[in-house]
């Protein structure tokens, strides 16, 4: 039993096909609402965590414990006038934030959420190639970043987007190689190793223990993908105003902002799915979803700690780090994984 059939049984008085169509729509809506709430929650959690680490209190005026602060900020961004630069390329300028935001929200559809009590498994899409689709969606995001920079007729924005793309190019190859190692490991146990659900079920031992090098590479890659502090060359707020988002204001800026925090959460979720065993844990049939959330939260805290403790890396240093260290490390990881798979240890 999963969430879809559960909703369809409730709606079964409508007839078979209408019930299923409606159930699909409702399930998608649930995921979109979940993604939005989680992204807003990430903003609140980040602000609170940063404040406590810096021995401040953080937002505490709007609502109890400042919970409504994110909503107040969102309302402010919606009300603001959207100022657009002269000489922009109009269509890409307006499409760029949408690309990032929609790719992010769609990414949430492919995560295997695992079962939760009476509802059954919450996984939305049961695809044999969900891993491929997920990483294709993640690979769309840099296009939004690049577009937003080069069309807004601003030299800071161009420099920011060029830096961002240089960063993206240098970490995505190692990231995909470490994912390849995951697929190799999963294929030894499971018939469909490109399915995220199959990868989770293949992890009797979490893959983070079997291939720590891959875990390390993937953690750094996800940090670079979300582009927060050690890797925020695209933004570089101390030298390039705010990089590629310089000319954006109002709701379009809000989309970039939510995109940043959403990518942290989505990256942590992918990391815990691929390396920490996803929804696996004690009483998996009842609280699998909770296990996934707990693992994700731990990764989120680690990510935010990385964010708050490190200064920005210079772009050439990161590019050389990506090509000279991350890439060989991920190749070594690939070879070691091959030995593990051949030896039957996985």
């Amino acid at each position, binding site marked *: 039993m999963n969430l879809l059939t559960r909703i369809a049984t409730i709606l079964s008085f409508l007839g078979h096909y209408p019930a299923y169509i409606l159930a699909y729509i409702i399930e998608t809506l649930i995921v979109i609402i979940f993604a939005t709430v989680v992204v807003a929650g990430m903003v609140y959690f980040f602000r609170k965590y940063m404040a406590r680490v810096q*021995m401040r209190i953080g937002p505490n005026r709007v609502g109890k414990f400042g919970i409504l602060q994110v909503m107040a900020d969102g309302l402010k961004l919606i009300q603001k006038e959207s100022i657009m630069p002269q000489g922009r390329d109009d269509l890409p300028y307006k499409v760029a934030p949408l690309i990032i935001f929609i790719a992010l929200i769609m990414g949430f559809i492919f995560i295997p959420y695992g079962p939760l009590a009476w509802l059954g498994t919450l996984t939305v899409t049961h695809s044999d190639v969900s891993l491929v689709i997920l990483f294709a969606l993640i690979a769309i995001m840099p296009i939004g970043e690049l577009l937003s920079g080069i069309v807004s007729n601003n030299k800071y924005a161009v420099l920011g987007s060029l830096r961002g793309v240089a960063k993206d190019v240098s970490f995505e190859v190692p990231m995909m190689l470490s994912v390849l190692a995951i697929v190799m490991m999963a294929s030894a146990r499971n018939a469909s190793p490109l399915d995220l659900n199959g990868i989770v079920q293949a992890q009797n031992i979490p893959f983070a223990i079997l291939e720590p090098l891959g875990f390390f590479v993937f953690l750094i890659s996800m940090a670079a993908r979300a582009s927060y502090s050690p890797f925020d060359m695209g933004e570089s707020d101390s030298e390039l105003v705010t990089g590629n988002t310089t000319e954006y204001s109002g709701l379009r800026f809000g989309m970039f902002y939510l995109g940043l925090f959403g990518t942290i959460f989505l990256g942590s979720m992918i990391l815990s799915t691929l390396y920490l065993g996803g929804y696996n844990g004690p009483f998996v049939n009842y609280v699998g979803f909770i296990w996934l959330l707990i693992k994700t939260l731990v990764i989120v805290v680690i990510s935010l700690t990385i964010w708050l403790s490190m200064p920005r890396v210079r772009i050439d240093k990161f590019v050389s780090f990506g090509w000279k260290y991350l890439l060989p490390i991920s190749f070594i990881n690939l070879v070691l994984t091959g030995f593990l798979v051949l030896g039957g240890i996985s």
Partner: protein
Amino acid sequence: MIEVKEVEEPKRIPILGSIGGMYTVFKHLFQKPVTVQYPEEKENQGDRFRFRIYLSTDDCVGCTLCEQVCPNLTITMVSLDKENPRNKRKIYPSVNFGTCTVCRNCEEICPTDAIYLKDVFETARTKNSFFYSPTDLEKNEDEVRR
């Protein structure tokens, strides 16, 4: 001939330093925040903190010493119609808090301890109303017209 000693740089393990920094950041999560939510809660001031000038018109003898010792003409003597056998000229100090630097010279020099300072510091007022007449100086802060 001077020998140049070569100092060996300490060998560093690349990631360990970063993890140390992360641990230092994470450690502060469990410490108490230092922020004071001002209007609702107030931090304790020091015992010797003083700000607002008070005047007891019964004790004032009108000797004008406080006016003379005031470094920036904050205190000026004004006449006040009040029966006080010790103050025959009927002049009392008035204070312009816009220029007061809280040097406490007036308190120190006053022969009868008529001028004294208290730790009241919430004296925010509207523009051009920093002038306190002698009767204002006798009252508490919330009784003075703002």
